[in-house]
């Protein structure tokens, strides 16, 4: 597990083991551990500041939906979208885009994953609480292989799907 003591937090990097955190799918009863999702699989995981926010909705999420077939063709088993929102909101957002089985919409309601990866983005002024920076990752059997972090937290550049696709 990643040591999240304030003095020792280091931003996650390629080669790290992805932390084991409980996320939620669909409702508060839908707990799922990241270790279960990642074990033995090739997983694309992307995170963003907020469900239903403009950049996330207009660009970030749609890109991964569009590139789903291409990711699958490259051997990706699962695509996961994570945000610091509650599971009802995440599910509703996914439904509004008709993601169906293509993307697992996972809620990190207490920001535990964002903290564990040291990618917390303080958006209290705009959204009311701390969120996650925008990033994308390729994780193989629980190990981070590629990691694209928007340094400013909200940019729509390196973390877009086409960039990760071309790196696989």
């Amino acid at each position, binding site marked *: 597990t990643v040591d999240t003591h304030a003095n020792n937090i280091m931003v996650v990097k390629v080669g790290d083991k992805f932390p084991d955190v409980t996320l939620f799918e669909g409702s508060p009863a839908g707990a799922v551990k990241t270790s279960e999702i990642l074990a033995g699989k090739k997983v694309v995981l992307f995170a963003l500041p907020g469900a239903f926010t403009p950049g996330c909705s207009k660009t970030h999420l749609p890109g991964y939906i569009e590139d789903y077939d291409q990711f699958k063709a490259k051997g990706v088993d699962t695509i996961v979208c994570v945000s610091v929102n509650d599971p009802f909101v995440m*599910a*509703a957002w996914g439904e509004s885009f008709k993601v169906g089985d293509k993307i697992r919409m996972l809620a990190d309601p207490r920001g535990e994953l964002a903290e564990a990866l040291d990618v917390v983005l303080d958006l209290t002024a705009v959204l009311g609480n701390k969120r996650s920076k925008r990033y994308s990752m390729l994780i193989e059997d629980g190990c981070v292989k590629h990691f694209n972090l928007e340094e400013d937290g909200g940019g729509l550049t390196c973390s877009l799907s086409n960039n990760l696709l071309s790196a696989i």
Partner: protein
Amino acid sequence: RFFSVAANASVIPSTPIKMKAFNGSETEDINTSQLFTDKKVVVFGVPGAFTPVCSNQHVPGFIEKAHSLASLGIDTIACVSVNDHFVMKAWAEKLNTGPQVLMVSDPTAEFTKSIGMDVDLTAGGLGVRSTRYAMVVDNGTVKQVMKEDSPGALDASSVDAVLAKLK
């Protein structure tokens, strides 16, 4: 909870609390003074946008009977939830709230806490939220306050319960 606002209390603090509200067309800035001064307002609080009871019963009830409340002299029906304003707008559009119900976003729970209606739903993955309640407020003074025994219940704070109190 130490206290919840009661009848004859004021819900307009001296320093206005700033929030945002979706009015059916766009999201606007709104503060407590603007929301309550010189108006008869029915405010109801919900634990969360896109949650089952809130979505399937509580808000739709107020949309359906908005005209009945208007005919009883109510100027504004406001739904308050501890969600960001992007989520509130998306939820309002999904529920078709139109101009009938003002969907107010209280993302840090500042207003909700000011009236003692906050509840810790962290265990349920929702964080600090609003409990379920309804209030009739006249020019900033609480006339009626109906708080559910638990956030999941919908009884005293439903539109029918509010209508019964007003008639």
